[in-house]
């Protein structure tokens, strides 16, 4: 992406087709990275509540360990789906 920006700065007035191609790929990758990052943040936020509840349940009853673990990692699917975007774009 930084490369792409450099090209913009160097060729301020006219842009070769090659440079324009580079630029669009750069933007797409930046957008994909942002998508994954935001999804991970959201997953983390969701897991905060679930994890707290799961630890509470496990403290009362050891058998809750496996269900608690599964519930806690469920929001992780968000990140996996967001990762798909990277492959579509890339």
């Amino acid at each position, binding site marked *: 992406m930084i490369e792409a920006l450099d090209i913009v700065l160097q060729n301020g007035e006219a842009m070769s087709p090659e440079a324009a191609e580079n630029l669009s790929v750069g933007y797409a990758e930046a957008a994909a990275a942002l998508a994954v990052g935001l999804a991970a943040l959201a997953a983390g936020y969701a897991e905060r*509540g679930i994890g707290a509840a799961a630890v509470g349940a496990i403290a009362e009853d050891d058998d809750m360990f496996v269900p608690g673990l599964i519930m806690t990692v469920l929001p992780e699917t968000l990140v996996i789906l967001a990762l798909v975007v990277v492959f579509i774009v890339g």
Partner: protein
Amino acid sequence: MSIGASNPEYVNARVRSRRASLFADEDYRKLIRMGPSEIARFMEETEYEREVNALGTRFSGVDLIEYALNRNLAKHFEDLLDWSEGRLYDLVSRYLRKFDVMNLKTIIRGIYTETDPEEVQTDLIRAGELDDRTIDRLLEVDTIEDAIEVVSGTIFYESLSAAHEEYEETGALVPLENALDREFYEHLLEDVSRSPGRTQPQEGPEARYIEFLQAEIDFRNARNALRLARSGADLDPAAYYIEGGVLFDASDLNRLVGDYDALVDHIAENKRYGDRLSGALGRLREADSLIQFEHALDAALLQYADTLSSIYPASVSAVLSYILAKEREVENIRAIARGREVGLSESEIEEELVIL
């Protein structure tokens, strides 16, 4: 006010798990047919095991059951305060302060009757906000004045010292006890509903929490009013009136205490409680059973808390509903044990229980 984020998810998970392990209604039916020592043995196999074993050498029979219940209650409510943080701690602790009030009353009465501190100590339920050190110091003092000095810095200090003057004039404990009660109920709604610069929330968990507390205050007022009306005692109703509810205001109460039927009608006409209590009110009109009505009030409050805890799963309401349910369990077991001790019949004991 405590700072920091609150953790309703964690507390809720733990509370709901404990709620599930409370006695079911069938267990009460089983308990009703048992004698005190059998009840103690039954409790030993449930979650009261540790308390029954710890106290088993010192007490027996109904005393053992009673102290084990108190200790277990204190343990669980202390846990609640340990777990909760931030805003949740505020909301839970202001409700659990009622045990502080209870303990202070017990201690003051103990000092008044010059009871041995050891005996007073066994009657305490250490579930409130006062820490063990303060309570231990309270147990050591010899005069009520010193006891009030010990609680300086808590919310009870000012009203207690004001009431102390009245106590010195009359020599009766009533002003002190009323001061404690009133302080508790006034702080219950403080800064959730009436803080300057903040309007009362109209919806969401906090609004329902306020509604619940108002119901508690209303029911307390209703209970006092009915008792006064029923006993015909020549007491000033205003002295027992607690502000903050929606069912009565002070003038209503003064007017209604003289007229029993009008009082019952007044409760029935209220749109917030009328429907919910209609069955109990009907029974109250027909029979002389004030006790049944009071139990119906308890049951209504409990059901209300349960409903709230399913509407707002991650809020303080699940904790409240657990507190009420646990208290109900302890009171029911105590009623069964005491009832068996004095030889009441099974159906008589059943009337004493709060069963949903």
